[in-house]
């Protein structure tokens, strides 16, 4: 899986392995913290799927299978770093402190964003594939000009890797030596299209053609993800330029709740990846090597259940905004046509109501 160059520190069976370039510096409590993160985001994700099935969300994009890629990368970030997600990075959002209910506002279709990106230093979902890679490079050029000790991390997928904007962002990041870390989550499927349709070479090889390093990581190994991203972020902050990290992983669920993966992939493949589960391997490590007791795991599961319940309540309490909210924040300064629309709709609604 993933070839010989795959960076891995933890096997699917939960065995620690050595790597000549990377070693894990994590303590037992830190690993347990990552495990807790992964259990919680998986549980919240499942709750969101249920909410969609019950008609409470317009759509949901499940992250199941990609918890290690997201928690490892997210926990490697420093507080001052800035992150640009695509739309499936609920795990990274969790590490940045974005309230789970806010992550679901866009999927409940009450807003088109969901949170203040500057507060969490975590930007908003970008649905047009790859657009955010250019924003990340531009932001990083701003960091350079400010002389700030910050790095920028941007997420995209194997499908988006075919987008012109992503490739342009590689050109710019290289030309300007921007302090940016590209995290490509290769989850093997762009809705129904396999990665083989997007590329004839391993995706992490692409960076070499642009003049910066690329690394392929076992995206289901949270220890490896953490160490590789941490080093790439340090490299960026030190002014040594961009890095491409390919997190080799698998989308265990559907692309979104509107998708039907049984039409294009075989269950046997999913089963193979089920044995590489990112959460179970950390649990095995913690139980075997760090003597974490069953009761502690049960506590974490209960905590996740409780958070899911809170999330459900918060989502159900989320009402549609007033119709005139569509006119808010379109511009930073008032615009006559927007205000004309506000007056027209308000007058119509007032007349209909009376």
């Amino acid at each position, binding site marked *: 899986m993933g070839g010989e160059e795959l960076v891995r520190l933890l096997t699917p069976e939960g065995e620690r392995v050595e790597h000549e370039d990377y070693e894990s510096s994590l303590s037992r409590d830190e690993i347990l913290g990552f495990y807790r993160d992964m259990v919680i985001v998986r549980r919240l994700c499942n709750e969101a799927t249920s909410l969609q099935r019950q008609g409470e969300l317009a759509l949901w994009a499940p992250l199941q299978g990609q918890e290690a890629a997201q928690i490892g990368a997210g926990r490697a970030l420093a507080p001052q770093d800035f992150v640009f997600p695509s739309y499936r990075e609920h795990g990274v959002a969790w590490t940045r402190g974005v309230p789970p209910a806010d992550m679901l506002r866009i999927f409940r279709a009450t807003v088109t964003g969901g949170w203040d990106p500057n507060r969490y230093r975590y930007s908003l979902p970008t649905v047009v594939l790859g657009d955010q890679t250019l924003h990340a*490079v531009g932001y990083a050029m701003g960091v350079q000009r400010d002389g700030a000790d910050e790095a920028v991390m941007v997420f995209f997928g194997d499908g988006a890797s075919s987008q012109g904007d992503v490739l342009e962002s590689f050109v710019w990041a290289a030309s300007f030596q921007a302090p940016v870390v590209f995290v490509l989550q290769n989850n093997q499927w762009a809705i129904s299209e396999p990665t083989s349709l997007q590329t004839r070479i391993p995706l992490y090889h692409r960076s070499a053609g642009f003049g910066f390093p690329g690394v392929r990581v076992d995206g289901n190994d949270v220890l490896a993800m953490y160490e590789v991203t941490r080093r790439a972020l340090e490299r960026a902050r030190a002014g040594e330029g961009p890095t491409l990290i390919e997190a080799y992983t698998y989308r265990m669920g559907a692309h979104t709740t509107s998708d039907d993966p049984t039409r294009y992939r075989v269950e046997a493949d999913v089963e193979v990846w089920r044995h590489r589960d990112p959460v179970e391997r950390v649990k095995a490590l913690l139980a075997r090597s760090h003597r974490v007791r069953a009761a502690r795991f049960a506590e974490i599961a209960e905590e996740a259940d409780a958070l899911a319940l809170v999330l459900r309540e918060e989502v159900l309490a989320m009402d549609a905004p007033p119709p005139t909210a569509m006119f808010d924040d379109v511009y930073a300064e008032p615009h006559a046509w927007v205000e004309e629309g506000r007056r027209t709709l308000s007058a119509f609604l007032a007349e209909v109501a009376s």
Partner: protein
Amino acid sequence: MTTMTMAKALNEGLRRALESDKHVLMLGEDIGKLGGVFRITDGLQKDFGEDRVIDAPLAESAIVGTSIGLAMRGYRTVVEIQFDGFVYPAFDQIVSQAAKLHKRSEGAYTMGLVIRLPFQGGIGAIEHHSESPEAYFVHTAGLRVVACSTPNDAYWMIQQAVAHDDPVIFCEPKSRYWERGEVDLDNPPAGLFDAVVRRPGTDLTVVAYGSMVKTALSAAEVAAQEGRELEVIDLRGLSPMDLDTVAASVERTGRLLVVQEAPPIASVGSEVVAAIQERCFYSLRAPATRVSAFHVPYPASKIEDEFRPSVDRVLWAIDNLMEHDS
């Protein structure tokens, strides 16, 4: 008061913008040592450095996309798109991102971004160098669009656009770059989006913007010799449009003619005509009318003078309009 070309006025305006705010940057192809293909940024990189006046790799989507990222970081980037016809690779970043991020972020992101667009034709260029794409951007909520027509406006409007907190598509009529005019270095002529009456008149209101303001003024001079007093309004703001100024004029003259270099369908002229007939229906003595280019791709430039409205074609339209007397 001093006299200079529009190209020089833009250069001086950009220089003031760079001087007044250290967060102002410039980004575009060949804008450094070369000073841009039209020399609008001439000397700015030398004086403000390569970190502020940045030669961009040749990728328009990236030029706009990275400027959006810089805006998120608090910078105000003035983008130069080399020619109108090269803006389309950046269309997605402009309409899906720059236009929507203030809304999507509920006001957290301010899109301080100016996209300079040398537009319109009349310079005998090859394909893709003479287009009028302004309607695409006027149609998109979240963007603002302006067009300058004189050196004085160019000098002031570019500074006002840079200081504005919304993304501004700044249309520069390239055929007028080398024409000279007076520039008042002390006082701005009007607000960024205000329409300006360039010539008062009583018989017919002519609305134009960009290159067509001069064409309309020339037509008004000829018409005056024939005893017709045209009021010529320079629209300047295309989104928003100062329709109050246009409506007040049409209320007096009873006739409206919009002159534009763009093709007619779903154009800026369409919007002016529609809005004015809604507002001034009972004051109109003749159908509100457009003189435009045609619904064809910009032609080979040997025949562009028949594609773009000429003084004679404007006068021809005026003759037809004046025959109405309801």
